[in-house]
């Protein structure tokens, strides 16, 4: 265990400086995400000698993602979104049996506060970066969950928000954004088209777009999924983690999070094997891993899993590298299996997830069938969003419920043998 105890910090919030992930060039803290030397992505730079807390200190802190603040890209006290994170880790013996693995847990970000997806974590980090950098207007390009998270957290913070989404997103995600009163712009095209417009807008207007020019600070919030898994398992790692992949950032940050806790001595042993799931209709990272190459070929998405329909994933190469290095693998699942995955999770575990979660469950099943998940594995599935956001995906998939008059004889006529 780490013996240094962190002092309780009371200084003003400051964002950490950044450095390029590819060439290492250092930059002062700013709303910049791209290296001027090689165009690689920037990431926050942490002081390797900073004091780190031990497990007892962390455990005594409030149950939010800020209990891991020494691994988040700030100095001083966070100012916004102080109560996101620390979602339940739920064991599911029935799903473990279905997969044929020793034990299985669900990291249930379907009940994340405040907007019911893991994007609450990254937005909590990004909005604090915006505050630290003095940025007055925030926003994002989104496939839906991020739009919900930015709109909700910006509203609470009193920040104006510009949110760009594909024009044909699911109704739940549109309503679940518009209700918070942002400037919501629906763009004709795919998420990748939205991204292009948003990148140009961020460049021109100086906004803090959380997944564009605040991307380095934003991504660090995803590490808290790994931190919470370790803590909730009793300060140890699982042997395998399965996560959905869109831009590829979550897998990359899970890898970084587990590595940081191992390096800090908060957990021991090997890190988990990392597995990624995509919809077959948008599987550029799956193709990259399966090909064994290093060139990611973008695709035009065609899937019901809109929240992971990113044809040009910015972190795809990094996700593929983490998957290969940890001994994991990938699964691309067709849409009907995604729907079946949603139903299996609900019926086996009592959790209603959106299409990305369905892809994760279906992907885990495929990986188990292929022998990639083993009988002695202790597996965590990352359930990243709530099923009420994508009810359209289940249209026609569930049995029609009969309507009867409020009379016992009608109930008995319908269900006599089952009563």
């Amino acid at each position: 265990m780490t013996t240094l105890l962190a002092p309780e910090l009371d200084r003003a919030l400051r964002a950490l400086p950044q450095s390029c992930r590819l060439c290492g060039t250092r930059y002062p803290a700013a709303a910049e995400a791209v290296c001027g030397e090689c165009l690689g992505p920037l990431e926050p730079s942490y002081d390797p000698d900073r004091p780190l807390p031990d497990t007892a200190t962390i455990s005594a802190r409030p149950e939010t993602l800020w209990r891991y603040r020494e691994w988040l890209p700030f100095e001083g006290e966070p100012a916004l979104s102080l109560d996101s994170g620390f979602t339940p880790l739920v064991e599911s013996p029935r799903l473990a049996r279905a997969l044929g693995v020793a034990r299985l847990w669900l990291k249930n970000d379907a009940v994340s506060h405040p907007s019911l997806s893991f994007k609450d974590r990254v937005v909590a980090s990004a909005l604090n970066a915006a505050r630290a950098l003095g940025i007055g207007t925030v926003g994002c390009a989104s496939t839906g969950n991020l739009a919900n998270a930015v709109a909700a957290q910006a509203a609470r913070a009193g920040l104006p928000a510009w949110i760009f989404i594909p024009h044909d997103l699911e109704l739940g995600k549109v309503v679940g954004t518009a209700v918070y009163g942002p400037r919501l712009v629906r763009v004709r095209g795919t998420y990748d088209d939205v991204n292009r417009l948003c990148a140009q807008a961020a460049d021109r207007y100086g906004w803090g777009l959380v997944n564009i020019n605040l991307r380095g600070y934003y991504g660090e919030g995803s590490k808290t999924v790994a931190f919470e898994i370790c803590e909730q398992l009793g300060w140890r790692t699982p042997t395998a983690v399965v996560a959905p992949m869109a831009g590829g950032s979550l897998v990359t940050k899970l890898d970084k999070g587990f590595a940081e806790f191992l390096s800090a001595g908060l957990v021991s042993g090997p890190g988990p094997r990392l597995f990624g799931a995509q919809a077959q209709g948008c599987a550029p990272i799956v193709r990259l891993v399966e090909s064994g190459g290093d060139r990611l070929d973008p695709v035009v998405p065609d899937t019901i899993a809109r929240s992971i329909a990113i044809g040009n994933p910015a972190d795809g190469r990094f996700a593929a590298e983490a998957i290969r290095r940890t001994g994991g693998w990938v699964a691309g699942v067709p849409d009907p299996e995604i729907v079946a995955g949603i139903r299996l999770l609900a019926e086996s575990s009592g959790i209603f997830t959106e299409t990305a979660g369905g892809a994760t469950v279906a992907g885990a099943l495929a990986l188990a069938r292929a022998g990639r998940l083993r009988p002695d594995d202790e597996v965590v599935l990352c359930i990243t969003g709530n099923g009420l956001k994508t009810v359209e995906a289940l249209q026609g998939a569930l049995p029609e419920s009969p309507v009867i008059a409020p009379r016992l004889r009608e109930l008995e006529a319908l269900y006599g043998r089952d009563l």
Partner: protein
Amino acid sequence: MAVTFSLPTVLARLADGHSTIEADGTTLGDVVAQIADRFPALAPRLRDPDGGPYPFVTFYLNDEDIRFQNGFATPVAEGDEITVVAAIAGG
């Protein structure tokens, strides 16, 4: 063929601050080569050592990602708009 070439701020700094540049050529590769000649500091950011685009940089010809066309061999037409965008995280 005269075209308009738009750069993000991070690259415009290497093009004497110009975020929009007029150029010409018959293919996107011609246009990139002409701009690289005009702004030597920008040249290694537009093309990798093999002369192709970097994985973290996307070139759009009008609204289309050139990787869905013929890359730098894609023909350009009079009045086309080329936009360079750095990679972006998921959403």
